[in-house]
């Protein structure tokens, strides 16, 4: 699609909605949320809890961590810390996105919605499509794009939830398998730098090891131990290069 010669905020918003539906992320997003819906059902959360978590948290990894941590009986503090550690990546995304959206003299509160909407899918599509667009239409476009993604995600979350409730064991198991497998592969796909690849590999090994030895706060410690080792290796290699 080509960026529109948008005549109004409304048409920019609608173009945003259309861009969401035709984005390459739709497939990933629907698959992810079908999986999260099945998982939420498995851990006995209600379908409305899941829908609200999609709108409020709006980050697949954070939702996955929260559902798993609470569902497997982790402590509330551990859940909050693990969610927060996973959310740090949103910070540089917001910092790089907002300058594209701000107009001179526009109040900060206009930026509250796009700030909340910032997620990997919306950020990648915005950075790709915004520069070609007139500045006065960017905010409306961005909100349309995000709301489009959010509607799709919430809908497929419900689809996964009800499918998990109604499918025979074999297929319900396959549905539950969708979350770890799609997150595994999409994380691997995003891991271009050695730092990320090492963190992924070490996390896959250290995580289950801590569960096996019944270390408490296993999710949080996995991140801190595997992440810090990866970072140290990255630094040491940088120093020797």
């Amino acid at each position, binding site marked *: 699609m080509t960026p529109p010669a948008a005549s109004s905020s409304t048409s920019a918003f609608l173009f945003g909605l259309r861009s969401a539906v035709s984005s390459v992320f739709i497939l990933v997003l629907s698959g992810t949320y079908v999986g999260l819906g099945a998982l939420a059902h*498995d*851990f*006995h*959360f209600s379908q409305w809890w899941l829908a609200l*978590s999609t709108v*409020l948290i709006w*980050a697949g*990894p*954070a939702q996955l961590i*929260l559902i*798993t941590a*609470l569902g*497997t009986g*982790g402590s*509330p503090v551990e*859940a*909050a810390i693990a*969610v*927060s550690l996973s*959310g*740090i*990546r*949103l*910070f*540089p995304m*917001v*910092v790089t996105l907002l300058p594209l959206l701000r107009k001179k003299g526009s109040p900060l509160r206009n930026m509250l919605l796009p*700030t909340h909407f910032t997620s990997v899918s919306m950020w990648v599509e915005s950075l790709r499509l915004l520069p070609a667009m007139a500045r006065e239409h960017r905010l409306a476009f961005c909100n349309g794009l995000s709301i489009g993604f959010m509607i799709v995600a919430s809908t497929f979350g419900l689809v996964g939830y009800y499918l*998990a409730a109604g499918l025979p*064991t*074999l297929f*319900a*198991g396959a549905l*539950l*398998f*969708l*979350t*770890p*497998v799609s*997150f595994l*592969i*999409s*994380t691997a796909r995003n891991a271009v730098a050695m*730092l*990320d690849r*090492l*963190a992924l590999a070490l*996390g*896959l090994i*250290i*995580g*289950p090891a801590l*569960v096996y030895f019944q270390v408490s706060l296993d999710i949080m410690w*996995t*991140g801190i131990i*595997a*992440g*810090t080792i*990866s*970072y140290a290796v990255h630094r040491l290699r940088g120093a020797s290069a």
Partner: protein
Amino acid sequence: MSAATQLSPYLMLVLLGFLPNEIWRLLGLIMARGLNEKSEIVLWSRAVATAILAGVIAKLILFPSGELAAMPLSVRVIAAASGFAAFLAIRRSLLAGVAIAEIVLIVGGFLSGH
């Protein structure tokens, strides 16, 4: 849900999910100039976040609950490994990887009598 967490699920959602995640977006909003994407603290936190996700993924595959726990461990591990291999072999395609993993899981689950 755990008996240890007697808070209302919706209160937990806001306190343990929404706020700890949203704080980073709000910090981004407040920091007008912001950090360099390559700054050391950002790199470290990216590694920690990736490792957390990896840990959760492995936990869901090796120690699942519900219907997935009914599948033998070997089937789950072989399915995940096949999906990963397919992803690497077929132009780093997410779709190919997920599809192969699911097919192997369903066939494996069927053959092992589920």
